[in-house]
């Protein structure tokens, strides 16, 4: 019966909300500090941020050298 399945759905929704309400939350200031720290600690390894030296760019076609 559709009223039974609505009831079952509603029960599931309430159970899920109870579960999610119990999540422990840290302050955004702490979360933000850690996200920031991660970015800064790894910045030097981030080729898209700091650039790729021309000679060591695997996607760039090597230039031919002319020997004069």
């Amino acid at each position, binding site marked *: 019966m559709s009223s039974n399945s609505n009831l079952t759905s509603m029960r599931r929704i309430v159970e899920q909300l109870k579960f999610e309400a119990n999540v422990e939350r840290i302050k955004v200031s702490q979360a933000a500090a850690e996200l920031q720290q991660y970015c800064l600690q790894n910045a030097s390894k981030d080729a*898209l941020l700091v650039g790729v030296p021309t000679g060591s760019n695997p996607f760039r076609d090597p230039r031919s050298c002319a020997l004069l």
Partner: protein
Amino acid sequence: MGEMDQMKKEAEGLKSQIEAARKAAADTTLADAASGVAPAPRVQLKTRKTLKGHLAKIYAMHWATDCRLMVSASQDGKLIIWDAFSGNKINAVPLKSSWVMTCAYAPSGNLVASGGLDNMCTVYNLKTPVVKTVKELDAHTGYLSCARFLSDTEILTASGDTTCALWDIETGKQKTVFLNHVGDCMCLALSPDMNMFISGACDSLAKLWDIRDGTCKQTFQGHTSDINAISFFPSGNAVVTGSDDCTCKMYDLRSDQEVISYQDAQLNSGVTSLALSVSGRLIFAGYDDFNCNIWDSLKGEKVGVLSGHDNRVSCTGVPQDGMCVCTGSWDSFLKIWN
């Protein structure tokens, strides 16, 4: 009061409780907290390679873990395996159904998968002399929007039937079905430690799931339209989403809420795809307006744009070593930038 009314009241009460708890933890915003950080430099990337070969719109791409090979899927009915260093095609896999929406590369490099309006996820072995179909994973009752391998024996899928599923590739059966979304699931991303995954759906919610026990751990709201793209921040503690509402958002898992929104009054195209650079500082977001905008993840400012496609950017991907970013488009080309 009938049980139904009682439960509705309980649900409303719980939602208010969650709202209040989130507010109590919101002692700042990410942008404010990062005000002391030097802005990211203006990012100007050049197209290093244009991969030509598909004959119709490209819908998806995925890097192999070797950071050199990648797979792309097009509605020309093919998966193409590319060597991104040379721009050469290594393999072209003909698909039974050309209505493909997703593709994935297994971490081992041995397998690839695809799926779409056929409602199935097909797994292929690239290492046999001729590419062979290993399994057709058939149980979803809606389109396959996204697939990601955990290993050669397990794969996660997201579907238009509103569920996600974990499959045993060898038996072809679903081990776990993740039920909770009330709209088509459009995207999924695996956590760096592979114990969790996050999904985005047309119900405008992102959900965090425990892969092993099948439960939905957290739900993130804020978007006002379909979430088309999702990715973990590299530390695993936050998630970035892209939506038809033209914004991207970052949600922190431990404070259980949105911490910043990436938007611009002049941007009124939906976000189709996104990828983060290895430090998490840069977000590459593909839009319906043919561009890929680059955002400073901490400050919420646009720091660059990748223009070059002649149609919608449908997919974006950064390889594990972060050496470049790949964009795929409805113009049938893929471009490698750095």
